[in-house]
């Protein structure tokens, strides 16, 4: 799975996710990537999220939307909200994976409970920062 989130000069944020699914999937299985709220969510009032990982869990815990709801209604910053969801109920239930997040102020957060996540970000006036492992 791949994804991107961004904020532009007008302060508008957006999220996108694209995937090939899981190896040897059957029965027309669909994971969280195309599910708005589970794998992808964007709302200027809170944040934009793209997720990757164990799709069935991201759907059941409505991960992308849940992170933004914590930002919007509980006033949490995007890193705290992401960590709560990724390391909280979802991990306890057995779900693995991660998210990338931006808000309208240009803050970036990344949270994952796996060994690694292919990831990168670039903020205004800075060079890109790339990482794979923890």
């Amino acid at each position, binding site marked *: 799975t791949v994804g991107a*989130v961004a904020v532009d000069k007008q302060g508008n944020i957006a999220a996108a996710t694209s995937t090939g*699914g899981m190896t040897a999937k059957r029965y027309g299985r669909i994971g969280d990537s195309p599910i708005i709220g589970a794998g992808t969510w964007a709302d200027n009032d809170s944040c934009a999220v793209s997720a990757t990982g164990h799709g069935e869990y991201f759907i059941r815990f409505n991960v992308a939307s849940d992170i933004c709801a914590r930002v919007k209604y509980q006033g949490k910053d995007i890193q705290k909200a992401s960590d709560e969801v990724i390391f909280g109920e979802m991990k306890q239930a057995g779900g693995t994976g991660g998210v990338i997040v931006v808000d309208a102020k240009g803050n970036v957060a990344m949270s994952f409970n796996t060994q690694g996540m292919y990831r990168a970000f670039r903020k205004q006036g800075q060079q890109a920062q790339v990482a794979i492992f923890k």
Partner: protein
Amino acid sequence: SSIAIAIHGGAGTISPQSMTSAQKLRYEAKLKQATDMGYNILAKGGSSIEAISAAVNVLEDSPLFNAGIGAVYTYDGAHELDASIMDGKTLNAGAVTGVKHIQNPINLARLVMTHSVHVMLSGEGAEEFALQQGMPLVANSTFDTERRYQSLLKAKQKLHDIKAKSKSGADYQANYVNWDNSYKMG
């Protein structure tokens, strides 16, 4: 407002031990290319939607990641792709699921968002919509890679092994469920 972009290329069982230095450099270079592609659009005043679409296109076009070219195989040996996109200003959204002949599924998801009254289209219907919008279809084999094919063979061999060691139908079912639960990493 301060511009920013973040991207990911998947998470999971990757470990430093399972990757050579050369492989790591290839991944890092592609991730940087995708990030810079999106950032440059933002820096020139482009929209966040344009930036994330371009960044995802770079990753979809790379055989390194499980999306577009490089997508994993289904049990039947094909590729089924999903994508979604959402605009935080309007809360408009678009998604496609189970498409087999779309080179860049994120572009079709974006068309669903901007050129249809729907949010999600699936399978053949989504591809019919793509044709109506002037988006060409490509052969499913476009997404083939040897590495992903070997992963499919490995997964099928595992299934065969479970069947071979199971003493009864119920035993097989229990073993399969155990394996399936541990295996269903998206």
